[in-house]
Structure formats: C-alpha cells, structure tokens
C-alpha cells in the first residue's frame, strides 16, 4: 500500500509538470503545425530563472515561504521570450516540416549554451526550500505539501486552459484557426497576432512548468534534451494537437515512469517508449488525436 501510494503521488506530480510542457507543445502544434523541439529548453530556462529569482528575493529579505508565487512570476516573465522566438519561426511556416524541426533543433543547441553561459555547467538547486511548507500525512506516507500544491496548480491551469479554449472569444477564434487557417484569414482573423500569442502562451506553459519543478529537482544542462522526449511521448500517446490527449498522456507517462522506477528501474524510460510505439501501432493518431489519412 505504501509503495502504491508513493508511486501514485510521485507519478501524478511528474504528470502535473509534464502536462504543462505538453500542453504548450499541443497548443503550438494545433495552431501553427510546428513540433517544437525547443519546448524542453523553455522548461529548463524556467527552472534556472526560477532558481535565480527565488535566491535573489530571499537574499533581499523575502520570507522563504513566499517562494511559490515568486517562481510562478519568474516563469511568466521569462516566458516573454516567446514572441521573439516566434518571429524567427515566421520564416519557416510555409516550408517543409524538416526545416521547421531543424530550426527548433537549432534553438535546442543554442539554448544549451545560453544556459551554460549564464548558469554554468554544474547543476543548480534550491536546497530544502520545499520543506518550508512542511509535509502532509496521507495514510502511511508523507508527501511534501509543495508537491501537492504543484499538482493543484497544474489542475487549475488545465481547467483554466480548457475554459479559455472553450468559452472565451479568443479561445474560439484560436480553435477555428487551428481547424482552418485559410478560412480564418478570409474571415478577418489576425493570424499573425494569433500565432504570436499562441506561441507565447505555449512558451509560458513550459517556463512555468520548469519553474514549478525546480524546488524538487536540480536544474541541469541535460534537462532540455531529456524532457523533450518525455513531452513527445505524452503528445504522441495522447494525440498530437489534443489538450485532453496531453492530460491523459501526461498521466500515463508520469504513472508508468513512477511505477517502472519502483518496480524495475532499468525499465524507467524503456517502458515509456514501448507505450509510445504500441500506441502508434494500434492508434496511429494517438488516443485523442484525429485519425491520419
């Protein structure tokens, strides 16, 4: 029972963070049809920037208990690089997918060194700041309160995103653009503006995800390239472009990984790729994606 709860909570926590990154990936793919390999880099950027912001605030007399809002703000602020990156992607919207992938691959390479330049090659962490929020007893196990707060925050963001896409005017226009770009253009949608805002939103989801995870795990230079394959797994399992898919995919990947680590740690990532391959064979479009041609 203890082991089961551990896996459950650990898995859901991991899923909560993965969902944020994957949701950003889905938004950008849904609207711009670009698979952004650099989503992991945004995540790492959020993580590093979060550490710096929190350390700076604490050094300037902020009570440590306020670190969660600082992290969120840090994630939001650094996510504002989105429009600049999007301006670069503008050059390849009408080009072959190979070039779009390569351009985001170039960003991965560049961000690797940008992170190294500002934060050095050694992993960075926030120490035991997590414990300022204490622990919660859940049956036979203890869980850091912070982890639960992140899960709740992620659920709130998911709900907010869902409501935003379904209920607001902007969300409806966004979905319409994703469905048929030419028709939206013809009906007077400012697609240029739409693309820039969607990409920025996607970036912010990644950076906030990274900032939220950093109190529990060190930020390292391997973070971007490792996370991107997990985020890929999530969106492929869930179906490219589907928000519901991102949610279910994140839960599957998060729980699978937690279970594999506790049962047979050699299978950690292997199990995830096996699920990806199984899903692509059985349901090529992913669980919630549109079927392919």
């Amino acid at each position: 029972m203890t082991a089961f709860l551990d896996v459950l909570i650990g898995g859901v926590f991991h899923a909560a963070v993965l969902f944020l990154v994957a949701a950003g990936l889905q938004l950008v793919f849904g609207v711009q049809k670009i698979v952004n390999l650099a989503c992991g880099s945004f995540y790492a950027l959020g993580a590093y920037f979060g550490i710096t912001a929190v350390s700076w605030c604490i050094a300037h007399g902020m009570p440590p208990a306020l670190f969660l809002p600082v992290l969120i703000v840090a994630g939001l602020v650094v996510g504002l690089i989105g429009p600049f990156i999007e301006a670069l992607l503008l050059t390849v919207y009408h080009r072959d997918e190979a070039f779009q992938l390569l351009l985001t691959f170039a960003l991965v390479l560049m961000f690797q060194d940008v992170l190294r330049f500002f934060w050095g090659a050694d992993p960075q962490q926030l120490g035991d700041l997590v414990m300022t929020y204490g622990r919660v007893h859940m049956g036979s196990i203890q869980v850091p309160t912070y982890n639960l707060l992140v899960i709740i925050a992620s659920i709130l963001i998911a709900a907010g995103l869902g409501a935003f896409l379904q209920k607001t005017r902007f969300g409806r226009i966004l979905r319409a653009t994703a469905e048929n770009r030419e028709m939206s253009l013809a009906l007077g949608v400012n697609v240029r503006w739409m693309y820039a805002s969607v990409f920025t939103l996607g970036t912010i989801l990644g950076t906030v995800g990274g900032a939220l995870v950093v109190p529990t795990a060190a930020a390292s230079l391997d973070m971007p390239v490792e996370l991107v394959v997990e985020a890929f797994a999530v969106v492929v399992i869930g179906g490219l472009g589907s928000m519901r898919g991102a949610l279910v995919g994140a839960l599957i990947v998060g729980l699978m990984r937690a279970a594999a680590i506790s049962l047979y740690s050699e299978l950690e990532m292997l199990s995830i790729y096996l699920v990806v391959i199984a899903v692509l064979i059985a349901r090529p479009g992913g669980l919630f994606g549109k079927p392919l041609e």
Partner: protein
Amino acid sequence: MRLALAIVGLAILAALPKVLSPYHVTLVLPALAYAIALLGFNLLFGYTGLLSFGHALFVAIGGYGAAVLSGKLGLKSFEAILLISAAVAVLVSIPVGLLAVRYVKIFFGILTLAFGMLFHSFLFKFYNITGGDTGMRVLRPSLLGQPYTDLDKTSWLIGPFYYYCVVLLAILAFIMWRVVHSHFGLHLVATRENRRKSEYLGVRVRFFRLVAFAISAFYCAIGGAILAINTGQADPELAYWTHSGELVFMTVLGGFGSFIGPVVGSFSYIFLKDQLIGMTQYWRFWMGLILIILVVLFPRGISGLFERMWIRLHRSTHS
C-alpha cells in the same frame, strides 16, 4: 565530368595523410564515417522525402556491433565485423521500417525517434550487458587479414585504416550512385513527389520505402562501426536523439538535394565543429546559429550554393 570530379576528390582524400598533421587526419576519419552513414541517410531523407529523427539507432548498432564482435567475441576481421554489424542493422530496420513507413512527415520522425531512444535507454540502463554510460571498448580489428601489430594506434588509424575507409567510401558511394539512378531510385523520387500518382502507376510505395529504410540502416551501421573503431569506444550517446539531429544537420549543411551533398556536409560539419570547439566553449551556440542561417537563407546547403554559382557562371559565359 562527374567521373573526373570523383577521381580528383579521391586523389585529394588519398593525399591528405601526406599533407595534414596526424591530428587533422584523425579528424578526417569521422568525416569519412559520417559521409558513408549520410549517403545512406540521404537516400531516405533527400530522395524518398522521409525525415528520420532516429537514425542514430543504426549508427549505434554499427558501433556496438564492432564493440561486441571485436571485444567480446574476439572476431578480428574488419570485413566480417562490418558485414555482420550492417546485417544486424538491416535485420532491425525491417520491423522498425515496417511500422515507420506507414507514416510520413512528422509521425515518421517521431516514431523513428522513439525507436532510437528505446535502444538508447536499453544501452544506458542495462549495465551488465552494455556497460551502461561508460559504454564498451572496441578493439583494433585486422584489415584484409593484416593485423599490423607493429603499428601504434595513431599510425594504424592514419595509415592502413584511413586508406581502407577511403576505399570503402568510394565503393559505397559508387553503389549508392547506381542505386539512386536505378529504376528503384527513380521510384523513390516519384513516391516523394506524388504518392497517389505513383501508386496509380503501380509503384509499391511502402515496399520501396522499406527497402530504402533498410539500405540507409546498412550504410549508417558501417559508418557507426568506423566511428567506434576510430574512438576505440562505443557509448550510448551514439543512439541519443541529438545525434540523430546531428545527422540531419550535416545532411542539410551539405545539401540534401544533391548526391554529393551528404559527403560535403559531413566534412564541413566535422571541421566546422573542430574549429569552433578550438575557439570557444560555447560552440553549440554558434552551431545552432549556423543551422538557423542555413535553414532560413540557404536551405539547399553548400552544394546548392555551388550549383547556383555554377549555373550563374554558365549563363554569364554564354550571354
């Protein structure tokens, strides 16, 4: 004309050990290895129009094949090592390819990436079998039955092994030239340009794509075996997805639209990377920047640039 260019190119390659320092010759070796791997890769990417983000899988099979055969099984003959590793890569490529060629575009890329990472995590995690992150040692094989035991490592690498690889590149490039100019090669281009139409005309699209996939795996494994023997080590990074990305980078750098592009790409990439690493620890940043400039401004790569200059030159002399 083309034959003359090929001969000049080979002559330059053969003369390099006489001109360059041993260090620079050891740099040419990975360039030769990547040139072989990319000739195969470009059959899939350039000619068939399928972008794989997982071909590091086959490079790694070549590398680990060389490690297992030379180190664990005591096989000495390089020819046997190459053939067996490449055969294993082809055997693996058939089930992987059967699944992957059902898709095109981004799904093909993601599925191949997943297979590559599957192999990477196997190499990385199963320490007992693969040596984990430290990888496996690769022993020096014999070339055409010659062990060359009197040579030390560097003089063996830049001597017999270097010439062996140049000849190998020449042979494999010639075979690839015949492949892309055969009916089979033209079929591949036809399926790239218009899948429906070529299906109506009786091209068995999936079967041809699968064969192209298997051939590319064969070439990548041979490149991987050379790489591993050159460094004396096979490690999991060979199978990592960023390595697959590098393969694509090199191909685009050289120009995927021309036959010789991948060879040009591998040589320019290796030397560019070496120069940048010598200048700054932030070489990845500059590599990324170069890739962006390439993608945005010169999508046809270096060979595309030369082609354009050639055409312009021709026009100006005729008018």
